[in-house]
């Protein structure tokens, strides 16, 4: 079926069957590969995108349900919060293999947009669904705190 998606500020006409996860439309049809496939069951967070500003797992979001919503992928991030998060990520060399990090960044932006000054407990709670098999969690936590400081400055 033909669908119209608003993604990263542009409207895309796509052809996808109902029930197709947004993830695969983003990756295979729109060829935006920053959003990753990790588990397909919303258990790892690698596929996290923003739907009207809120982080969601695109592997469990059906494409027909998001017509009309503003979808943002890692490629479309454009805010002061995102800038601070990505700068902190690079400053602290958070990444190792990096495959989960798009999702980590998308969730971190969601967290700091809601809560610019999170406690460690709030960070751990919010980021709990984003798995990192390289276990870069120490640096993820530190980078979120660093980004929070940058936003305040």
């Amino acid at each position, binding site marked *: 079926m033909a669908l119209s998606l608003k993604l990263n500020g542009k409207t895309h006409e796509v052809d996808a069957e109902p029930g*197709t996860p947004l993830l*695969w439309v983003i990756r295979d049809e729109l060829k935006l590969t920053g959003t990753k*496939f990790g588990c*397909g069951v919303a258990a790892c967070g690698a596929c996290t995108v923003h739907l009207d500003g809120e982080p969601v797992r695109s592997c469990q979001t059906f494409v027909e349900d998001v017509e009309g919503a503003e979808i943002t992928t890692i490629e479309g991030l454009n805010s002061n919060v995102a800038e601070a998060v990505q700068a902190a990520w690079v400053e602290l060399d958070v990444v190792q*293999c990096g*495959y989960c990090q798009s999702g980590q960044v998308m969730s971190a932006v969601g967290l700091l947009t809601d809560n610019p000054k999170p406690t460690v407990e709030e960070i751990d709670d919010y980021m709990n669904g984003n*798995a990192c*098999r*390289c276990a870069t*969690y120490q640096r993820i936590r530190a980078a979120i705190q660093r980004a929070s400081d940058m936003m305040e400055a």
Partner: protein
Amino acid sequence: MTLKTSRRGFLKSAAAAAAVLYVGARPDGALAAGSAPAQLNPFVKIDADGTVTAIVKHFEKGQGPATGLTTLIAEELGVSMEDIQYEFAPSDPSRYANLAFGQFQGTGGSTAIANSFMQYRQAGAAAREMLINAAAKAWGADAGALSIEDGMVTGAGQKAPIADFVAAAAQMEAPAEPRLKDPSEFRLIGNASVRRKDSLPKTNGTAQYAMDLHLPNQMVVVIARSPRMGGLATGFDDADAKAVKGYIRAAVLPNKAGVAVYAEDTWAAFQAREAISVDWDFSAAETRSSDQIREELMAAVNSDPTYNVNGADRAATEALVDGADTVLERTFYFPLLAHAPMEPLTCTIEANEDGGITLHDGAQMPTGPHFAMAEIFQLPMEKIRINTMLAGGSFGRRATPTADYQVEAALAFVLTDRTRPVKLVWSREDDITAGYYRPAVAHKVRIGLDAAGNIAGWDHRVAAQSIIKGTAFEPMLVHNGVDHSSVEGIGDSPYQIPGQHVGLTDIAKATTVLWWRSVGHTHTAYVMETMLDEAAQAAGRDPVEFRLALLKGGTADQQRLAGVLQLAADKGNWGKAPAGRSQGIAVHKSFGSYVAEVVEISGSASDGVKIEKVTCAVDCGLAVNPDVVKAQMEGGIGYGLGHVMRDEITLTDGVVDQSNFPDYEPLRIGDIGAIEVHIMPSAEMPTGAGEPGTPPSAPALANAIAVTGPRVTALPMNQNGVDFV
């Protein structure tokens, strides 16, 4: 192969830049090219505009060689880290072999920096000398008066960018023994402020992994695999799959290991696979359950071992233990574990215009799939091209001796007319259920202590499914029947343990098994370090002091192990745990490096354990990129702890019980409160960093739990009496 490569390079650069001065390949295989870009040696390429590229022979799965090998070149060449880029080397073991592996290109055993350290420095230094010699000639100056700093040739009253001398330098012979910098001259090696080369693209979504490749007109293939290990596909019914939009067709793989399902895109392939029913022949398939495997392992360690690992007299050891004042006896069980790298396995194969093929892959051991491709496609090696892409983790999984997933892709490609590229995609369920696990292992240890609490004898028996036997690595890694990877870290530990006998028994493989981050040390360190802890407790002695007493032989090995043990104890406030907290410590040598860790927990096994803090001390020789070493310790600790807390692969009648992260739960951000890493200053040659952080983490946690709770001798902990909060 070198000639072909250089000709392709010639044609490519001829098209890109018309001015080609000279292209050739010397008989020794080294490239010398006066065109742009110029390759000064196999490891350094410099464009006419001065852009420097390190050609990295190790793949990047996050462990840092893209930064590390680039650092070595930049240091010796004299350019800043900002002014050097990297690309992955082609598959060619004549130039890019891992020096620790013989004539074989690959990454593993935490060897990337260790085997490249001199080679890449020499390459950078050779390029520096060639550029300086070219400048000296141009300026009529004495080469000895010139140097390169931040990409500028400087001296004799002159200063010019290296770009000015690239063309001339490229026509020179590389010096046989270029002068290497003295460590006192290092500006980048050992500098903790050097940043990773891959942070930005991995933070903004532009980094390209093998999973991200979309070749024009490609097909996606997924494999319907036998639910039981070793089952064979005899046929299938795809009537329902034909309703899936984008489904192309399906075919039984030539080796019958599964059914290849072809589709226009990934989701269609997954959907179609769901809709296909496959007929399986299970007559040769595994039908055991993991409980039976466990019983076999336990029976094996309770019988006389097949192999004597360390040559000690077993009867004498038994007599020493039996005659001791105190005997400690424990039996341990370690379950199968999956690697579960974040990027599921994937690779893409396409036909080349010259009749060859290209494999696009996060290739950990390119030489393996290179041979496999040549055999499957009946092509000469030089017709196979391997494009190494970023890998989303591995932990050993991308390096199978059978090149398993690359072979799968090749077989799926063979079944097509080869006009369309074929991209193989694994789902997480494929990854968790399709084998190549850390083998299940059992140990039995009997320690005799004398009246003074000193070790009198140590009888150690291991039973395992051998990783190495039956693979191409057997001649290198199996001696007198002993698969060294089953017992590494016991008899060869730096500890001076009197009366120690080590025995090994192999059991038949129930699943395919594979090296898993730190390989045998995943279980040997756990057994050694928890038993030593218990022995110290039985002797009424401090666990640190007890271990140090076994490291007084005066060897460098013992001094370095003692050094990190003491450093971790000091930095981790050993013996001064805050109220309500317990500490455990462990130390282990692996991959040439020495790592000690103090784990501090709150709570208890019955009330729920929280890992509050891990303090790590590492001696890996000279740390080329200290911050990358720290990151590898952090990651190695997390990988070790996450699995011992709650992960195992189990089988019921040959079918894997787990399927995805909900039942193979990864470490989460809240599981570890803090990790602090201290690097022992060292001028020794660099040794491993990717794996050595893992082995001490689990026994240190177990020892902390044992302060107020049980000695955990079977894993995972949450299935064996330990609750976590």
